[in-house]
């Protein structure tokens, strides 16, 4: 198997391009072995590598790629927040897709050392008349309910719209907000050699090992082509992981933390070491596994849920193990940091070496940039005349009101526990934003999540600015001061010219609006390839915004108060 033709073929089957493959060989000065090829295929995937978005995102967010989530300060508190998508999994298995989406974003916030205190979501579905769409809608809502409620984090606000552009590509974006004392935030950077890498959480199984079945069709004789790639969420383990992690982070000698998300062990260990300008060694026999026939590369790439990586000094293992036992979680030391910037994976300590790579080659996926040109569709859209309206206002109004996008969302949000934590000052349906009380103070965090796929389709630049403005208005409407933005950019295939242009325009719009409002973009996420049979969704940037309420007694909601009160319209 270890001859060049096969390795190259494997690389291609795993989704690397020939260009990327050659780049790897070039940078390594040799051909990667089979195991290493798997590592590259995951670490250089769009999902981990941000190949098609890095160039733009750097313009947007100065701290891009440095920590798990961004934050703002309110009083002594750091408010940590981020939004994440789980669009593709939700299309395939709506319940588990949405559930594991929540799990992932919650661990991102947790990894910063913050206790997650609220969830929001933005959901996009196709035409509800289609039975397939209905099934996805039901599944996503009950997945959020099942997972979010069980881990005891309130889902306090959100938005849902229905449009045929999402018929085959639903969007499930979830935003999580956490609170930490400013000086207790956790780093995700390794800060010295010979620190131990501690694995905490559920066991590793073959969940979400992408490309596995695909690759094995070509290569595998013994591999089962039936390997599942759908992850199942275990909210009980997540709840335990939240409590355990917060306890572990209090231990002196615990230096860094990183959740195991996409490409689990591989990306968490390599990025943690790389950010600390170090290398690391891993011993795969130490990883707690769920089934014996799992392969080394599967262990590395597995996206089994509810796992965390901690970097610790020698000597605090026992304390951590005790906490893990208390919370019924696995604990193992799976490796350590080393001074040389190499990424080494061993079958076992002093055993066979499976990979030895320059860590910055592994971690730094190539960056693609296109010279975008304005697509003709934009001019066509811009040239559209306002259609003459024949229908009566009465019947148009009825049609609008009957559209599920404008209907009451009560059926949805009543399935979410929006009150647990008893910090929810504004519950769903009462105002355009929610507010979470920082108990012990007069302050609250104001929260909203917004998008408008029609605007952003017609003009991604202006549309995106509009969404940012809307988010800010929603915060202002309850008396909050907008502070910062997180975003999730849901797009089609970035290799297409039109999509690439849409993406660039969206970023420009975001930069412009966030400067105008003085609300920096502190975190975010990109979801590409939301397309089906070559048809991409409307560009859908989703904006989460966080604001500050200085005095919770001054919060206002949108209910009319008294008869004969006068109504004013402000603006034009």
């Amino acid at each position: 198997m270890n001859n060049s033709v096969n390795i190259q073929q494997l690389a291609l089957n795993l989704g690397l391009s020939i260009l990327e493959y050659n780049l790897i060989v070039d940078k390594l000065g040799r051909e990667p072995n089979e195991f290493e090829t798997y590592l590259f295929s995951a670490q250089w995937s769009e999902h981990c590598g941000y190949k098609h978005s890095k160039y733009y995102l750097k313009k947007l967010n100065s701290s891009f790629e440095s920590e798990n989530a961004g934050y703002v300060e309110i009083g002594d508190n750091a408010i940590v927040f981020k939004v994440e998508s789980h669009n593709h999994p939700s299309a395939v298995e709506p319940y588990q897709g949405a559930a594991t989406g929540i799990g992932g974003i919650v661990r991102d916030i947790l990894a910063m050392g913050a206790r997650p205190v609220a969830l929001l979501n933005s959901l996009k579905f196709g035409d509800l008349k289609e039975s397939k769409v209905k099934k996805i809608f039901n599944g996503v809502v009950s997945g959020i309910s099942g997972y979010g409620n069980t881990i005891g984090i309130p889902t306090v606000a959100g938005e849902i719209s229905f449009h045929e552009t999402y018929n085959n590509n639903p969007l499930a974006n979830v935003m999580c907000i956490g609170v930490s004392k400013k000086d207790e935030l956790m780093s995700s950077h390794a800060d010295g050699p010979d620190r131990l890498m501690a694995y905490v959480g559920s066991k590793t199984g073959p969940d979400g090992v992408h490309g596995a079945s695909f690759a094995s069709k070509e290569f595998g004789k013994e591999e089962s082509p039936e390997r599942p790639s759908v992850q199942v969420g275990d909210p009980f383990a997540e709840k335990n992981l939240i409590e355990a992690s917060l306890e572990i982070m209090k231990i002196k000698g615990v230096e860094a933390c990183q959740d195991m998300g996409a490409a689990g062990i591989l990306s968490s260990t390599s990025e943690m070491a790389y950010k600390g300008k170090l290398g690391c060694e891993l011993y795969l026999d130490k990883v707690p596994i769920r089934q014996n026939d799992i392969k080394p590369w599967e262990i590395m790439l597995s996206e089994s849920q509810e796992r965390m990586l901690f970097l610790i000094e020698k000597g605090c293992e026992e304390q951590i193990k005790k906490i893990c036992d208390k919370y019924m979680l696995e604990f193992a030391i799976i490796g350590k940091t080393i001074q040389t910037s190499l990424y080494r994976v061993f079958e076992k300590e002093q055993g066979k070496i499976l990979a030895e790579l320059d860590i910055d080659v592994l971690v730094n996926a190539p960056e693609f940039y296109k010279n975008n040109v304005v697509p003709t569709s934009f001019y066509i859209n811009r040239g559209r005349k306002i259609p003459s309206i024949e229908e009566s206002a009465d019947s148009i109004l009825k049609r609008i009101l009957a559209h599920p996008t404008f209907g009451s969302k009560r059926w949805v949000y009543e399935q979410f526990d929006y009150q647990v934590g008893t910090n929810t000052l504004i519950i769903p349906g009462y105002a355009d934003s929610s507010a979470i009380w920082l108990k012990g103070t007069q302050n609250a965090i104001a929260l909203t999540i917004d998008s408008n796929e029609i605007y952003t389709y017609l003009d991604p630049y202006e549309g995106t600015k509009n969404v940012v403005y809307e988010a800010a208005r929603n915060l202002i409407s309850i008396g909050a001061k907008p502070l910062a933005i997180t975003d999730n950019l849901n797009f089609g295939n970035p290799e297409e010219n039109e999509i690439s242009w849409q993406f660039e325009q969206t970023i420009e719009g975001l930069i412009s609006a966030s400067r105008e409002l003085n609300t920096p973009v502190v975190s975010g996420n990109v979801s590409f390839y939301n397309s089906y049979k070559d048809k991409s969704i409307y560009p859908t940037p989703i904006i989460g915004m966080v604001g500050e309420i200085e005095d919770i007694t001054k919060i206002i909601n949108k209910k009319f108060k008294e008869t004969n009160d006068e109504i004013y319209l402000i603006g034009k």
Partner: protein
Amino acid sequence: MKIIKTAVLVFPGTSGERDAHFALQRNNFSVDYLWHDFDQSLEYDLIFLPGGSSFGDYLRPGAFAKYSNVIKSIEKYVLQNRGLVVGIGNGFQILTEVGLLPGGLALNESNTFICKDVLVEAINLETPFSNSINPDNNTFRFSIASRYGRYVVNNNEIDENQIIFKFLHNPNGSSENIAGIVNKDMNVFGTMLHIERSCHPFLGYDEFNPIFESIRRYLTRE
């Protein structure tokens, strides 16, 4: 004022413990958290089993909590009538699973989780948990948040005077609109109503919480 000592139990998966803590403190109870493997005798005036879930509720809500050490201590505590026990949500489910309260909690009629405010009426005001309620002002708004909130009980397992609260509009299909019950000795109270969420006007509820008020009155009178 006599200090009322309360233990809030925490099982793996519990999420309502801090809510209970906040509410109890606002009502001037002193509060300790107790992890579920606690097996000493319980030197408290009130034992509070909060909401959330326990062990993921993966078999049935509350089913596995039964095997925690603390349960044996609670059984003794109840038998010897050493104080009061309150179970909210998952706490209620645990108390029925253990057998300290009759009946059981089944999947809501709607097959979905339900989080909303409901109106209930207090119909027995002669219990340690309801003695402060004014008969002319006995309707309250409380929050529910559960998927397994449908209370099921056979008529012959429960006496009329064990029912403290009834729903005005049944949200989940519970037998006889029952929203909160006590055991025969009237020292254990269970409900799916999140009474601990009704503790602060900022959170949309009255300051006055009839249940905490009644408990205080009962325990300080003795």
